[in-house]
């Protein structure tokens, strides 16, 4: 229940605060910033359901077809959770950075793929969207969010031994 309110609170903060920051800071993806930090801290699969709730709430304030943000966000977190469990298990800043960059790239690939399909399906103007024009936005989103995740990693590492550089104990 606490996590549910946490997700609602940060959805409000994202929409009401982060999105109105000057460019490029408005591109920070608060959902992935928090979800990846939570994953590093708790290492729990509940992060996938948090991602589901986060992206469901965001979907309510998005003009694109319902389901695009929800599907791409939740599926990305599921993939990232598996990667964290079985592949990128090293607790280091560079592994965190890699995981964060990978998460956002996968998210945007899924997102733009679905946006493209939406354009084809609905014959809407979105189908004519030039992907190359979005590269600067995605670049800033990936860069700033990943830096944020690494910064949170260092903060958590400073205050707790849970984040010490070691393999995950299973």
């Amino acid at each position, binding site marked *: 229940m606490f996590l549910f309110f946490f997700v*609602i609170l940060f959805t409000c903060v994202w*929409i*009401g605060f982060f999105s*109105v920051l000057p460019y490029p800071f408005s591109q920070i993806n608060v959902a992935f910033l928090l979800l990846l930090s939570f994953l590093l801290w708790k290492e729990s699969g509940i992060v996938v359901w948090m991602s589901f709730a986060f992206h469901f709430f965001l979907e309510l*304030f998005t003009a694109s077809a319902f389901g695009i943000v929800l599907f791409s966000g939740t599926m990305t977190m599921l993939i990232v959770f598996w990667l964290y469990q079985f592949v990128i298990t090293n607790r280091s800043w560079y592994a965190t950075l890699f995981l964060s960059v990978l998460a956002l790239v996968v998210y945007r690939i899924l997102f733009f793929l679905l946006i493209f399909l939406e354009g084809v399906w609905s014959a809407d103007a979105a189908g004519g969207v030039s992907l190359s*024009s979005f590269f600067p936005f995605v670049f800033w989103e990936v860069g700033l969010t990943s830096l944020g995740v690494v910064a949170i990693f260092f903060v958590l590492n400073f205050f707790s031994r849970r984040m010490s550089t070691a393999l995950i104990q299973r």
Partner: protein
Amino acid sequence: MRSRARSLFGISTVILTVIFFHYFGFLYQVEEFFRRVIGFGSGKIYALTSSVESAPESFDTVDACVASLSNCRTLSEQMEIDRAAFELLQEENVNLRNQLHFIAERGFITVGADVIGKNSDPVGNILILNRGSNDGIFAGAPAIVGGGLLVGKVVQADPHTSLLQLANDNRSRFAATILNRERSIGLVEGGYGISVEMNFIPQNETVNIGDQIITSGLETPMPRGLIIGRVESVEKEPYQPFQRAVLHPAADMDAIAQVSVIIGY
């Protein structure tokens, strides 16, 4: 491996069920509840942010700052001259209207709405408003600020909230007229949240920097005469059938706290 497949199947099923329920309206009450809760929360945060934010402009050099100040002074003086001319013209205009009954005063029916948040996804530049279809707002309705400065149009109207697509959104399109000698007609399109351009301006028509651009009224429900902006630069290639103008929007898209949505005219 099997547990991973089971997780993937379970989550996919939940997502598809939610999408299915959404499109068939089964989640209507739940979605409205969360829209109101999150809208209320983000509205409070947005209001707080707007009151603190001063939108500073940064300069790389002192010379750039001095040049900008000098430019501001020149513009200010020009505005004072324009204002005096405008007041004279306004008086003249009122007299003419009264004498000739040539044009009836246009009365817009508007709904005032507060901005409660922003969605700055790469494919959209959307403001979230605290009024929706219950207040008469509908998809396609134009929104203005100040004295008729167009900021965008509503793309989605829910009962208590609505989504306003800003003029600089990359999916935004308006039929527009340039106030030049030929009254050129074209299409104003947003440029990924950072620019506004007017396309399909006939090659043989003269477009000058500083020309004002207004809505042409050729599309419904957009009335004629809403101010979009001014021409900042013109791109004209001899081999192209049309020319293109980059606009400076009349409204500051980054500092919008309230808008008026036109629901009738």
